[in-house]
């Protein structure tokens, strides 16, 4: 199986889907002639023409709204919103319009569109280019939200999102941009939306994470071996969330730690902890712990980023903490 970098897997997924279906198109700032601010759409405009791979003005709300109108009129647009933080500018169209089209039209219209956006976390991007706002999106009925931690999933989840008939937000990690991994060549390599992956099987503690944090969870698990046998669950899809996969793991281990790079308050970890408490109460042998940044904006310099985002040592400490509690 060929090795590709995370960004190359995204590029390949878009190229294959643009090739497969003439209704697919790509809109966004710098996606055409420049090939994307980070290269994700390299050479796509050359191949598919300037109308299907289209550079736009810096108008996030309008390009997302236009993608929505286009998706209701026969196209299957992919929109690139350069940084996750910029989603805030487009949120009206995402939340008030796109997410509700199917419901408001009683299913007569639907919005087969994808919004790709980049989490700049961990690359010195600071307060307005480094946030993780997945909780905002997963909170909205009508949206799907996915986030790959490996190149193979970056390809397979994006392809599933493009073929999905609902609006899907695909979050990508700048921190994983050059990460290499085996990526299937199969043009129908689809990773189902709503299915978590067990990255490391274990018996003692479940650590749930997604995006770049998954790799720190895995490093923590390696460090804890053989003291604690950690199971690392890569959620991959925030909405819909793989409840069965989550519950099965927690039933097995009886302990749950959630690690994410969004701040904790009202965040996705609280939702996951609550689901586990509701469904796995009898199996739980310790309180659910969340490992998250403090309730503060994202800082830019390396030493503060390190202090802010969950590190391997933080995850190790949380796992030890839940294992020390009652048998």
């Amino acid at each position, binding site marked *: 199986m060929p090795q590709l970098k995370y960004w190359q897997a995204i590029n390949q997924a878009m190229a294959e889907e643009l090739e497969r279906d003439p*209704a697919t*198109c790509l809109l966004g700032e710098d996606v055409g002639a420049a090939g994307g601010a980070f290269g994700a759409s390299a050479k796509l405009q050359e191949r598919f023409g300037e*109308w*299907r791979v*289209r550079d*736009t*003005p810096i*108008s996030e*709300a*309008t*390009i*997302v*709204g*236009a*993608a*929505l*109108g*286009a*998706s*209701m*009129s*026969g*196209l299957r*647009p992919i929109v690139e919103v350069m940084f996750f933080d910029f989603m805030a500018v487009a949120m*009206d*169209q995402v939340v*008030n*319009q796109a997410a509700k*089209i*199917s*419901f*408001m*039209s*009683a*299913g*007569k*219209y*639907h919005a*087969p569109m994808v919004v790709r956006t980049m989490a700049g976390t961990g690359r010195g991007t600071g307060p307005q280019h480094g946030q993780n706002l997945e909780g905002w999106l997963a909170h909205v*009925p*009508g949206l*799907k939200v996915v986030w790959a931690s490996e190149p193979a999933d970056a390809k397979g989840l994006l392809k599933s999102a493009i073929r*999905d*008939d*609902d609006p899907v937000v695909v979050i990508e990690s700048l921190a994983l941009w050059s990460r290499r991994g085996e990526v299937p060549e199969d043009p129908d390599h689809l990773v189902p939306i*709503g299915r978590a992956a067990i990255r490391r099987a274990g018996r003692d503690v479940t650590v749930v994470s997604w995006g770049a944090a998954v790799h720190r969870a895995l490093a923590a698990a390696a460090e804890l071996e053989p003291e604690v046998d950690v199971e690392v669950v890569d959620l991959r899809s925030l*909405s*819909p*969330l793989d409840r069965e996969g989550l519950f099965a793991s927690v039933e097995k281990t009886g302990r749950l730690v959630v690690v994410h790079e969004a701040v904790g308050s009202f965040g996705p970890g609280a939702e996951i902890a609550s689901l586990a408490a509701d469904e796995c109460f009898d199996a739980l042998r310790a309180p659910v712990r969340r490992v998250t940044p403090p309730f503060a904006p994202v800082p830019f310099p390396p030493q503060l980023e390190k202090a802010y985002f969950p590190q391997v040592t933080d995850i190790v400490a949380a796992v030890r903490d839940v294992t020390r509690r009652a048998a």
Partner: protein
Amino acid sequence: MTEWFASSDGEISSEQALDIYRVMLTIRSFESAAADLLAGGRLPGFLHLSIGQEGVAAGVCSALGPEDGITTTHRGHGHCIAKGGSVDRMMAELFGRGEGYCKGRSGSMHIMDADAGILGAHAIVGAGLPMAVGAAYSAKVRGERRVAVAFFGEGAVGEGVFHESLNLAALWSLPVVFVCENNRYAELSHVSMHLSAKHVADFGAPYGIPAATLDGNDVLAVASAARKAVGRARDGGGPTLLEFETYRWRGHFEGDPQRYRSRDEVASWQARDPVARFQERLEAGFAVDVAELDRIEREASTAVERAVEWAESLPPAPPTSLLEDVYRSGSA
């Protein structure tokens, strides 16, 4: 530019004129019935009515075919009726009945009909403009001759997406017509309090978009300008911005105490009633006899009465419908 949009005799046939008249009366009848039903406690929710603005909806939509798309606003009943929406299903939606356009779950501000090209009434001010631009982009990419129309009020000019949408549509020369109903009020605020420009049409020039300010209460002038703008868009000529001056007879919402305007002001605009003006024009210019006009009026009000009767007789939307259509591809 205004001259180019001016109407000329013979442009609209008698048959088309009577269709337009029927649409205007259906809108007025629908809106009046809705007002009475809400006041009588028979309708739930909010209502934003378009009485006094019927000329713009009927005139513009007379220039469109079923394949063309529109987006509209919280004050969108008129546009939906004019574009071919069913008064039965609209009324059922207002009543919160399962047979409504959204199974009675969304209400007055969210009428959508894929069969009639109603891409939706969207109740966030300005929200429909980017969607119409996107529908036009789709037509361009797919090589279709469809045109998209975005209806909005002058209050939408305060939203960034108005400017972004004009910029994008002009930059890509898209087949979209921006139709502003300048009804003098953005919610409760007079246009002098929220708009820097003298006319909304003034915003056409900076984006290189042909634009004109026209009398929205002269339905033939509206129909004529819309035909030119739609024809231009269909032939690849790009977007147009049409500003129609009109007036909202009712409050921003039903129940609005309207402390911000005088009765004299309302009366002065009621004297320029688009329906009455067109009726006179039909009698004088199209030699339609009064009996024919009365018949059309009766038919329009009967259609609305029947819609009310039917909608009210239906059972309320059941709670079991809450989770339907949230996702196209199965629930989360």
